[in-house]
């Protein structure tokens, strides 16, 4: 990306905290947060689909809240703590698992329930569902559908994703109980 930046374009020194690590890069103002994360930080877990906020694949957590990284500029993201899919496995509830369990409950549930096929949309689902379960720890099936309504998947038909959300809530509760 940087190679194709016109020489005349002003570069901004942008420092963004991503997954607890502060990263700096000189980027033009128009650098989308999604491109900043992928190209400048080489964290390619965040996927870019539609680039106008519809598909949800690029969803990251901004101060813990799911937001579209394709609809934010890196220069604006400086004031916030960003969590990408790479940062989910070090989320606090995963760190408490002493068995070497590296996945967070949502990641484990998606693996168990076949909540993905090609995996393109998965980073957006994982971030969205991780944040959602913080707010509603035991969703109903209807609530799970509502929670993922802003994320598109063209493989699964969503049934296994809904199962994954419900299973993630169970795993989260199980882990909390084990380590209570």
């Amino acid at each position, binding site marked *: 990306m940087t190679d194709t930046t016109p020489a005349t374009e002003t570069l901004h020194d942008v420092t963004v905290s991503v997954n607890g690590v502060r990263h700096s890069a000189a980027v033009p*103002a128009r650098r989308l947060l999604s*491109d900043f994360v992928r190209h400048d930080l080489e964290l390619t877990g965040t996927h870019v689909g539609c680039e*106008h906020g519809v598909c949800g694949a690029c969803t990251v957590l901004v101060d813990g809240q799911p937001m579209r990284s394709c609809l934010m500029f890196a*220069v604006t993201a400086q004031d916030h703590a960003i969590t990408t899919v790479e940062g989910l496995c070090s989320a606090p509830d995963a760190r408490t698992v002493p068995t070497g369990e590296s996945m967070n409950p949502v990641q484990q549930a998606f693996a168990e329930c076949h909540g993905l096929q090609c995996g393109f949309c998965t980073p957006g689902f994982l971030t969205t569902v991780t944040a959602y379960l913080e707010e509603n720890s035991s969703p109903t099936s209807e609530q799970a559908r509502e929670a993922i309504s802003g994320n598109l998947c063209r493989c699964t038909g969503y049934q296994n994703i809904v199962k994954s959300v419900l299973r993630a809530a169970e795993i989260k509760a199980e882990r909390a109980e084990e380590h209570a």
Partner: protein
Amino acid sequence: MKPAPFEHHAPLTVEQAVSVLTEVGHDGKVLAGGQSLIPILNMRLASPAHLVDINRVAGLDTVEVTAEAVRVGALVRHAGLERSESAYAALPLLRQALVNVAHPAIRNRGTTVGSIAHADAAGEMPAILALTDGVVEVAGPSGTREIAWSDFFLGALETSLAAEELAVAVRFGRFPAGTGTAFTEAARRHGDYAMAGVGVALTVADGVVSGARASFVSVTDVPSVLDLGPVLDGVEPGSGEWDAALDTAAEAVRGHVDPEGDIHASADYRRMLVTELTRRVLPQAADRATTPAPNAAFDRGSAVTTLSSTSSTAFGGQGASHD
């Protein structure tokens, strides 16, 4: 799908923001949440030379409730207003409408004032500003001014905000005691722009209707309010006359709206939709007018009405939280 180059300005005060806007004039655009603006930039439907990013401007992120109004600052995100219990207690209509705004991830970033300044006929919050007889507070080079909603919206995506002015807040007017409100819309897919939507406010005094108004989404060029008082005043909700009065109100809506057809729905279909939706929300508003305590679970649950659904509380339930 990348924006064209622009110069980024990050003012820290309203005065600085206005000063930059004055300097750059029509080449400038205000960036708040960016959930409508950045898609437009990404698709290069617009390529302003300057973006005035107000996200660091102090003092714009508060919700204040007064006896007359709910005042929402320019950096209040939809989700923040949606969750505000004081705003909900003062004006339940806000949350009733906000749960229909796009998806939670968009509401986490997008601002209510930005949505109003964007003035999309398919936006929910411009219609709500109209329904509540709201006001836009504006800062400009020569000081501040207030613009009534009816003078604010000029056309599709067009407002009376000058290029050098910044909308710093909006005030949604509160309704008199005994008023119930309701909002619903119908979309092809969950969270999409609505094909048609309607909000209503209905006041009941001494058991009969004494004032009713409606405003609309996606079926009028600019937000407009239809006074349903003439057809509903004096009627007791649930009485023998009520059904006939609702039919008359629905017909008044059919005559009032002026939808355009597109790939999603024909003009006739939108007109039919909004007529039926109005018929459904008026009894909800009447129920709420006679039930003093707002029912949070219900409001959170009524985000979506599909015409095939027999239940209007498709996603209801205690502890429901969609954001």
